[in-house]
Structure formats: structure tokens, C-alpha cells
């Protein structure tokens, strides 16, 4: 049976091919002048060319898409290539002179995608075929049914097959025959895709007699979409949570472990972001340019840690045990740092470019997740691991815990407590600097970058439980997910308000947060 369909489709294709020349000549020549007209005329001409099956249509449309199609004052169209300029109609060589590029708008661009899709569907390059299969979805013309069936019969790559089936179903919806339409509807019902839903609802408006079948198909799609949306919302929550986690981790060390209320914490994050910018600029044009972002991580850590160490040794250590003064002083330091950065780099935002592997979406089992967010979740967990490891397994971590638990006894054991204080504060600041690297990818690198995160950071640390890293992790992720789950219902502004009120009530009941420390450390 399959072979029969294949044979039939092939025969059809051959028939179309042999019948083409006489007819296509006219179609090409007839459509061409439209390209010199207004946007509406261009779009129509493009659609006609897309179905013309003329070999000259593809280079012409590609030229239009890439801005290489020129128009003389008298309406003559020229195609510009590396080899030279030729007249579109005759193929004769021509001088470009003062001919201007034919401009396209969204309408034309949409038509172009569809047309190029139908022309390239049988390309030998699998990447081109996949793109063509996606694009032909847009043209939604019944004329594409036969070529798509033929292409599907020949296709072996599974990803392209899936896309072809989707596009074929979409083309079937455009058929005048309700039986063919129904075929398309049934095929689309099996897809989990918002575009399929959109297309079905669009058809429903045009073909009211199929409303019942379409509703059933849409209901099927929606059921699966709902599950996917929940997963997506959860992912977005995790992503926001990981940003909060990164911003709060440094504070979990300086505030959570040492008890210093550091209002300049946000500025450490900001310094990290500027360090990323500096590394990017320094490596610009060198062979290390693609590695600028990973290299910025240690740079940001060192810069923020150095500033943190100077801050602790120079100012904070004189104010231990006086939280109010520490708060005011670090607040002032934060303003000084902001202004300093403003003087050095200017008040304008700096652009940190994202490397190619952080752009676009990653497709994971039908889910599409934005790449930069995935990387930031990974990075957040890595940094958390680093902090836990440093505190648990290094000598510095041991000394740090000892000083926090009992400063005097630690000192009698020969630990230089002052040095440990400085190192701990520098460590916390350095972590904040690393958070800045991640934030430079999703937020604006400006002197006020940090102010937006300081409140959130304190919120996470207090909510999770002061002094508890596990609390910081759970706190950050909980707040992130809560925020994102609420956003569609309450809006971005109100969602934040609701979360804040929730935290206030929670802290009323449990002043020590989710993971309250017990024992002597809690009183220290």
C-alpha cells in the first residue's frame, strides 16, 4: 500500500515536472513585474513564484530575501550576486547603476518564508530541508499537498519527517475538500504545538461545518499543552529561583555566616557584571574572544573579593557587634561604589554580548527552554556546590566555622581570627561577583544593577533561615517558583507584592526562617 502511494506521488510529481515548462514560463514572467510594486503586490508575486516550480524562482526569491534584488527607476529588476549583476527576466548581464534594493516588510517576509519553503522542500541539504519544512507550514496552500506528500515519502530524517507531517496537515486544512481537511485536522490533533492550535482555530472560523471535529482536536491539543505549560512555568520559576540563589549566596556567607548586614552586597554583584564587561572588551578581537564569559568568572570573583577584603579590613571590622552602624556604613559604601562605576564607565548601560551557545532555545523532549536560562540554572547549582565544598572540606572552611562557633576558643587554638574574617568576607563578596557574571547575561549592566537584587537577596536569606545554605537554596527556588506561578494570574507587579506579603506572614510565624539553626551556633 505504502509503495503504491509512493509510486502515485512520484508519478504526480513527474507529471507536474513535465507539464511545468510551458505553464511556468508564463507564471514566472507574469509574476515578475509585481516585485517592483508596493508591499501588497510584492507579497502576491512572491506567493505566485513560490508555486511556479520555475527554476529561476528560487535564486530570485533568495535575492529578494537577502536584499540583493535591485530595482531601477523604470521598474527593471536586477539580481546582484558575487559574480555580477544580471537582469532578472532575461538573465543578461547588466550594470547596477543607481538601482536601489527592493525593500521588504513583514508581509513580504512572511510570504517569502512560505514560498522558499515550498521551493526548497526537495533540497539535498538536510538543514535546508528542515527549514523549508518549517517554513512551508506558513504558506498553508492546498497546492503544497502533493509536493509535501512526495517529499515525505522520500524523507528519512525523523526530525524533518515530523515537521513535514505537520506542514502537510496544515496544507490539507487549506484544501477545498472537507475529507482532506478532516485528514489534516486529525493529524494536527496528535501534535503538541501552539501553532497547530492556532491553525485549527483559524480554520474553524473559515469552515464552520467542521467546528465539532476541530473543537475535539483542539481540546486534545490543549490537554497536552496544559501539562507542558505547567512544566514550562516550573522551569521559569526555577530559572528565577536560580538567579535569586546566585544573588543571595554571597549574602548567605557574609550575612548568614558572619552576621554582617552588608547593604553594599548588590554593588559586589554589579562589580562582577562590570568585570565581565571589562574581560569581554579586553579579549575583543583576540583568539580568546569566544571564551570571554568563562574567563570572566574568575576575574569577577577576584575583583569583588579584593574590594570585599579591603572593605572588611578597612571599615567593617571596626563595627562588629554594631549592626545599625554597619548597615548605614555599608549603605554609604554601596553608593560610593555606584558613583565610582558611574564616573569610570559612564551612566549608560554597557552591553555584554551573549556567546552563541547561550542564545536561542534548547529543545528537550518537546519542551523548548531558553538557553541562557538553562545555563544560569546550571551555573547557580555549580556555585552552590562550590560554596558548600569550600565550607565543608577546606581548611579555610573549617577555620571559618570554628570562628563563627566560638571566636575566643578558635583564637586560643591558634587561628588568626582577623584573617579568617577578612577571607570570609572576601569569599562572600567574590561569590556575589560571580553572580554578576550570570546577571550580565539577562539584565542590564548599569551602575544600579545591584540595587534591584539587594532586597531580594535579604528576603531569600531570611526566608530560608539565616546561616543555612540549604535554606538559601530552598528559599530561592520556592520564591522563584511561587512568583512565576502567580504571575499569569496576578501580573508581574502584583505577584511580587503577594510574595512579599506571604514572606512577612511567614516570618511572623517563624522568625528564624525555614531552616532554623539549632544549638549554640544559633545564639552566636
Amino acid at each position, binding site marked *: 500500500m505504502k509503495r503504491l502511494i509512493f509510486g502515485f506521488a512520484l508519478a504526480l510529481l513527474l507529471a507536474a515536472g513535465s507539464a511545468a515548462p510551458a505553464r511556468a514560463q508564463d507564471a514566472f514572467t507574469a509574476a515578475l513585474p509585481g516585485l517592483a510594486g508596493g*508591499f*501588497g503586490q510584492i507579497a502576491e508575486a512572491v506567493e505566485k513564484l513560490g508555486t511556479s516550480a520555475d527554476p529561476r524562482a528560487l535564486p530570485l526569491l533568495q535575492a529578494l530575501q537577502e536584499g540583493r534584488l535591485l530595482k531601477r527607476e523604470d521598474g527593471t529588476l536586477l539580481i546582484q550576486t558575487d559574480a555580477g549583476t544580471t537582469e532578472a527576466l532575461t538573465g543578461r548581464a547588466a550594470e547596477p547603476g543607481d538601482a536601489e534594493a527592493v*525593500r521588504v*516588510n*513583514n*508581509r513580504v*517576509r*512572511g510570504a517569502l*518564508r512560505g514560498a522558499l519553503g515550498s521551493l526548497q522542500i526537495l533540497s539535498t541539504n538536510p538543514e535546508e530541508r528542515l527549514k523549508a519544512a518549517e517554513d512551508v507550514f*506558513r504558506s498553508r496552500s492546498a497546492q503544497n499537498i502533493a509536493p509535501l506528500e512526495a517529499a515525505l515519502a522520500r524523507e528519512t530524517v525523523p526530525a524533518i519527517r515530523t515537521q513535514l507531517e505537520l506542514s502537510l496537515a496544515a496544507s490539507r486544512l487549506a484544501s477545498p475538500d472537507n475529507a482532506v481537511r478532516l485528514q489534516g485536522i486529525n493529524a494536527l490533533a496528535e501534535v503538541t504545538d*501552539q*501553532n497547530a*492550535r*492556532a*491553525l*485549527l*482555530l*483559524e*480554520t*474553524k*472560523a473559515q469552515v464552520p461545518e467542521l467546528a465539532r471535529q476541530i473543537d475535539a482536536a483542539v481540546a486534545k491539543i490543549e490537554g497536552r499543552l496544559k501539562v507542558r*505549560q505547567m512544566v*514550562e*512555568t516550573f522551569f*521559569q520559576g526555577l*530559572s*528565577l529561583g536560580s*538567579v535569586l540563589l546566585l544573588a543571595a549566596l554571597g549574602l548567605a556567607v557574609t550575612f548568614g555566616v558572619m552576621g554582617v548586614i552588608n547593604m553594599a552586597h548588590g554593588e559586589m554583584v554589579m562589580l562582577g557584571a562590570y568585570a565581565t564587561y571589562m574581560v569581554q572588551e579586553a579579549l575583543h578581537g583576540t583568539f580568546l574572544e569566544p571564551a570571554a564569559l568563562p574567563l570572566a568568572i574568575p576575574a569577577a570573583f577576584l575583583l569583588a573579593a579584593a574590594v570585599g577584603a579591603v572593605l572588611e579590613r578597612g571599615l567593617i571590622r571596626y563595627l562588629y557587634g554594631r549592626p545599625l552602624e554597619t548597615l548605614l556604613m555599608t549603605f554609604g559604601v554601596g553608593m560610593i561604589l555606584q558613583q565610582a562605576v*558611574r564616573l569610570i564607565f559612564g*551612566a*549608560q*548601560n554597557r*552591553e555584554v*554580548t*551573549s556567546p552563541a551557545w547561550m*542564545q*536561542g*532555545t534548547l529543545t528537550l523532549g518537546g519542551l*523548548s527552554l*531558553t*538557553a*541562557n*536560562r538553562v545555563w544560569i540554572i546550571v551555573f547557580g547549582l555549580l556555585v552552590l556546590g562550590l560554596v558548600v565544598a569550600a565550607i565543608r572540606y577546606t581548611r579555610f572552611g573549617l577555620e571559618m566555622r570554628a570562628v563563627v562557633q566560638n571566636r575566643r576558643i578558635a583564637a586560643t587554638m591558634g587561628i588568626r581570627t582577623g584573617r579568617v574574617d577578612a577571607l570570609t568576607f572576601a569569599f562572600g563578596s567574590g561569590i556575589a561577583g560571580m553572580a554578576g557574571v550570570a546577571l550580565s547575561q*539577562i*539584565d*542590564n549592566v*548599569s*551602575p*544600579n544593577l545591584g540595587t*534591584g537584587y539587594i532586597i531580594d537577596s535579604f528576603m531569600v536569606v531570611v526566608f530560608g533561615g539565616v546561616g543555612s545554605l540549604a535554606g538559601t537554596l530552598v528559599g530561592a527556588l520556592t520564591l522563584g517558583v511561587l512568583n*512565576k506561578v502567580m*504571575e*499569569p494570574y496576578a*501580573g*508581574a*507587579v502584583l505577584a*511580587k507584592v503577594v510574595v512579599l506579603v506571604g514572606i512577612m506572614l511567614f516570618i511572623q510565624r517563624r522568625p528564624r526562617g525555614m531552616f532554623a539553626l539549632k544549638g549554640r551556633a544559633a545564639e552566636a
Partner: protein
Amino acid sequence: MTNFTLTRRGAIAGLGAALATPAIPSAFAQGAPIKVGVLHSLSGTMAISETALRDTVLMMVEDQNRKGGLLGRRLQAVVVDPASNWPLFAEKARELLQVAKVDVTFGCWTSVSRKSVLPVFEELKGLLFYPVQYEGEEESPNIFYTGAAPNQQAIPAVDYLLGPDGGNAKRIALLGTDYVYPRTTNRILRNYLLSKGFTADDIMEEYTPFGHSDWQGIVSQVKRFASAGKKTAIVSTINGDANVPFYRELGNQGIKAEDIPCVAFSVGEEELAGIDTKPLVGHLAAWNYFMSVKSQVNDQFLAMWRAYIKNPRRVTNDPMEATYTGFKMWAQAVTAAGSAKVSDVIPKVIGQKVATPSGYIEEMLPNHHLSKPVMIGEIQANGQFNIVFKTPNAVPAENWSPYIPENASRRR
């Protein structure tokens, strides 16, 4: 340039300096300088947009001084930084009017900052030129509005989206920053869309705080909204640097302009200079001027700007053009009045005509607003706009929108 003072010695020294450099007319020696206040945020979330406006005013002041100043007096710019802090705008305005005693002020971008300085300018009888498109619903004797009113930007842009070239949109998502301009504009647009036969279900409205950076949720919400089988478009009144992560998210989530076009009212060439525009090709902006306009005045404007800023890569945008126009109108009004006093200048500003870089002649109307052409441009890969629509004539401003029911009694 030497620092002129009122003392006789200063005047003589000034005269000497003026004679020594023939480019500067000697008439400068007479009278105190005319003071031009500049009230734009140079830091904070709006600095991305407003810094260029300060530079534009300074450029215009320098240009005017090169031409001999006004009324034989030199112009002197007084720059303050209200730091994107709305209450600080009022304080700085007071400082300009009472301490520096400026004769005219060019300033503000966001409507909230304008609302904050309005009572100050009215109380102290100042004169403010406001260069940005806004929501209308305002008219002050002390303010001239050189940006667009809703009927010169928002409504034509939506008309374009609803038309065949814009894709015959049947659903509109209104996204904005949470303050007075987006809220009022969207209220006007909602009423307009309802009058065009839209149902409430086909309009989505969403607001975010200034500097919002996490757009994933809202962008996926828009995607869902767009999958109802009707052509969907976004109308963005997002202001300031929140636009950068917004457009980045649109690009990352693969929203193409052919599928869901986004037309922005506060994104111009200057804002795009900070982002990679390749994923944004085809998204739209509605303004009354684009840098890519072909006109003689625009060529001069571009040359002047590049010479002043000493950077051939710097761009111009609509509010800069509006600042240029406002400055020219003020200068013409001062010349016509023969005085820089606010009370003398204000009546003379009305009716002034200026050939602007937009290629049209714009006129100050009695309602303190301009007649302006409307243009719609698509973002290109190089960060410039491809103008896909423009009105044949300048459109007079309607600052009291007919789509706000309360204005019925106000209509004239």
C-alpha cells in the same frame, strides 16, 4: 570660550576676545547670557534614553552661539541630573528656576517626571519644552509639547497593525511599564479597539515595573495568547532599559516579526544601539521621525550631530528631533518677541513653523502641541528603521483623546 561676566573689565575682555576671533560676533558683549536649563536623567534607568537629549540641547546651544546667540546675547546651558528619580525632577526644576534663574528649560522623558515638574513650572512661571511622545490628557500654559500626542503615534500605529500591510491583526497584546503613560495610552487604545469591533477577550494588557528584567513568563503568556487562531500583534509601551531584556527574550523564544509583530512607542535608534538587532528584524516602531528619513534638513541635522558628538557611529532619534524642533521654535519666538522673558516668549511660540529633519514643516498649535507627520518603521539588522508607512501631511495633535469618555465635555 571665555567666561563672560557683568563687570566692566569682563565686558572689555569679552569684547577683546570677540574682536580677536571674528567667528564670534562682537554683540556678545552686551547683556547677561540667556540661560537654557537642561533637565534630563543622566543616570538611572532612563539614562539610556535621556543622555542623548542633553547632548542635543547642548549642541543646539553651541550652534546658536556660533550664529551669534539670540538678541545679541550669548546662550548658556545649565545642566542638572534628576537621576531617573521622579520627585527629584521637581526639586531640580525648582533649582533651575529659582537658583539658576533659567529662561527656558528643555527636559523630561517619562510622563511621571513631567507630571512631577508641571506644578513647579506653573507656580514659578517657567517655560518647559517637553520633547517626547506621550499619552496626552494634559495642557499647561507653561509647557510646550513637541513630541506626539496619541493620535499622532499610538492610534496610527494600531491602524497599521489592523491593516493589510501590518498583517490584519485581530488580537492585540498591550504590554507596558507600570506608570501613567502606558496606562493612559493603553486605556485610549483599548477604547479605540473596542470601537473597531474587538472584544475584550482579544485584548491582553500587562504591566511591569521600571527596569523589569525577567520577561520569560510574560513572553510565553503572549505566545499562548497568540495561539487562538487569530493574527496577533504586540503594542509595547515599555520604557527605558527594560526593553533590552524584553527584546532579548522575544529573540530567545523565537518570536518572529512575521508571526507576532511588536510595535513599540518608546524604542528608537538610541535604544537599539545597545542590543543585537538581528533577531528583531521586522519588529516595528511608530514615531514622527526616523534617522533613515531622506530630507535635506535631516542630512544637515545628522552632520551637525556627528560633528558635535565627534563620533560618526552615534545615531539620532525622534525625541532628539523633537528637541531640535522645540529649540528652533523657542529661538524663533525669542527673536520675534525681542525678549527672552517667559511671559513675552510664550505667546510668540504659538504659530511658529519649523522645517524639521522629518522632511515636513511642523507648526506649534494653540493647544501647545505640534502638527507632525506619522511614520512607522521596521527594525533592520543594522539597527536602523525601514520606513514602511508615513502620512502624506503633518497631522495636528489631539491632546484630549476622543477615546476617553471623560473628555466629551472638553471637545471643541
